[in-house]
């Protein structure tokens, strides 16, 4: 009995700490976005309202930034899937010279200070006229998605039991049919997870977008930085922040519906 009590107590403590650390800042941001007047030392705002929402959504630069961010994330994710998924199948299933070396090379993007790498790429981009160019940003974002889009599906493809595929051949399925009916359904959770991560990461990515894209290509995070730095209106930052949560919430909900939490957890693991 005492053991159960102590366990409970620990659980509550962890839950409380997590709440303070994760949820409170989010709640604070959410509250700020609906605040019209909030002066020290009041604990809750003096006046709530949608005035700033109207302001923010009415701005052309905000609408443009949302569009830019969404299309950037969508294009990068689609291209990444197109390149990486066949590659990950090859890595998982085929044997070719330099396979391991090539596979590990995807990790190098994360093995060195990223910013240094991007500066080097940026100098090359200057020569190619890709600085301040939407496609320049797409290209460099693509680099940072490689690891998720290759490593996660590779382990998924490797986890599919080869005997299950052979059993399907045995009952008369062609190799293509085996891939479609046996392999695909089993790797789908992992691939969905990879696509999800890629989309959300690209959507939130700030430093590279700034380095390569600024000032012509303006994404939502870049706009937010400008609002916070130069206009000093907290509500603008808060509202943009809330807007930025939307895609990841939506994707998570879709993924949960589609896959179930367990499969998703397995895929991420």
């Amino acid at each position, binding site marked *: 009995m005492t053991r159960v009590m102590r366990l409970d107590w620990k659980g509550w403590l962890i839950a409380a700490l997590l709440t303070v650390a994760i949820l409170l800042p989010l709640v604070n941001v959410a509250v700020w976005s609906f605040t019209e007047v909030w002066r020290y030392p009041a604990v809750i705002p003096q006046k709530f309202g949608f005035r700033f929402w109207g302001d923010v959504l009415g701005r052309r630069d905000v609408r443009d930034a949302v569009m830019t961010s969404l299309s950037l994330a969508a294009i990068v994710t689609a291209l990444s899937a197109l390149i990486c998924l066949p590659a990950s199948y090859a890595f998982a299933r085929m044997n070719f010279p330099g396979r391991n070396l090539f596979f590990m090379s995807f990790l190098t993007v994360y093995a060195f200070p990223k910013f240094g790498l991007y500066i080097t790429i940026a100098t090359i981009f200057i020569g190619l006229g890709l600085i301040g160019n939407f496609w320049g940003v797409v290209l460099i974002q693509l680099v940072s998605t490689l690891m998720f889009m290759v490593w996660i599906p590779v382990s998924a493809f490797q986890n599919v*039991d080869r*005997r*299950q595929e*052979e*059993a*399907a*051949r*045995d*009952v*008369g*399925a*062609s190799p293509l*049919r085996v891939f479609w*009916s*046996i392999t695909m*359904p*089993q790797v789908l959770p992992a691939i969905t997870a990879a696509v999800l991560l890629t989309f959300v990461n690209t959507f939130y990515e700030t430093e590279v977008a700034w380095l390569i894209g600024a000032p012509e290509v303006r994404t939502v995070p870049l706009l937010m930085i400008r609002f916070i730095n130069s206009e000093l209106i907290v509500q603008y930052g808060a509202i943009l922040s809330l807007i930025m949560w939307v895609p990841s919430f939506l994707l998570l909900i879709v993924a949960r519906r589609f896959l179930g939490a367990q499969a998703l957890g397995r895929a991420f693991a």
Partner: protein
Amino acid sequence: MAELEIRNLSRVFGATRAVNDVSISVAHGELLCLLGPSGSGKSTVLRMLGGFERPDSGSILIDGKDVTNLPPERRPTGMVFQSHALWSHMDVFSNVAFGLKLRRLPRQDIRQRTEAALDMVGLAGFGPRRPTKLSGGQQQRVALARSLVLEPKILLLDEPFASLDQHLRERMREEVREIQQRAGITMVFVTHGQDEALALADRIAVMRDGRLEQVDKPDAVYRRPRTAFVAGFIGQMNLIDGEVRAGSLNAAGVTVAVALADGPATLAMRPEDIGLQRASGADAATVHRVIDFGTHLSVELQASGGTRLKATAQPGSGWTAGMQAHLHPRKFAVYRDGTLCGLPLAPGRADLPLSLQSLVTDQAPASRDHLASNHS
């Protein structure tokens, strides 16, 4: 029903010849067991029959038609895998029905045949369940139904009962045998369990290092093993190295008359074929340990030269550790360079040279029950 013929089949993996010049033919409706220790090449043979592995040389014929280069989906074979290999993202019904769907049969047919197949393996009503929610034996039966529903000409089974417990294994064995006889399917069954092979097979092909050692009926493999390897691998066997001098072989204090030239030879005696007689003296063997199996006593002895061997005795015959005994082989066989040179025969057998028949010391054949009790 179909006839299977394997001709000079070989497969090389790197430096090892996994399968080396194997030729067997399997008759209509026959159940052939490929038996051997792990790494003997038996699974590779089976995978080549199923089309999952290409032979480096040799050919495979089913009903006279060469299928050596056909992919698995175009062969009239069905394979039951050791790991069951059920599709975990489909329910039991879909697992069994998948092959029928590929054949574009009408829905009604698919439903009927799938249900009949599930019924045959005793899993009627299990259709909507997930394979992961089934027990090992049930999964095994789904795998069996999945292959049987397509009515393959030849059913291949790769150690299908390896993951089951003893009790279930015996029951599944009987079921498979029954289904095989009812449906009249030609079957090739891979196992490393000799009791499984003895219980199931019409014929056993014993493999070692990629080669066939002996292909014969179970009782022949047990009673007339052609090589020392087969003798040692199937059932319990005392294999004792000795020396032939002037027509008599002496091994571990046992002397038998043989018609062989002088030189080294191996004496092979089954524990149940050794008679024990109480004795004393320097040439007697010492009882090292006695285990009571209920039906018989297993007596472990140490011969005067230090060789260990096993004999069986009647329960209640009073053998205990420390006693001394003389060994009297009722039956034995002699091997030189691993191959048979003399063995006990049934009376009046004329298919072996007279020199070998003279080796026979006791001609009473052991009963089949006796054989079975020694394998569990």
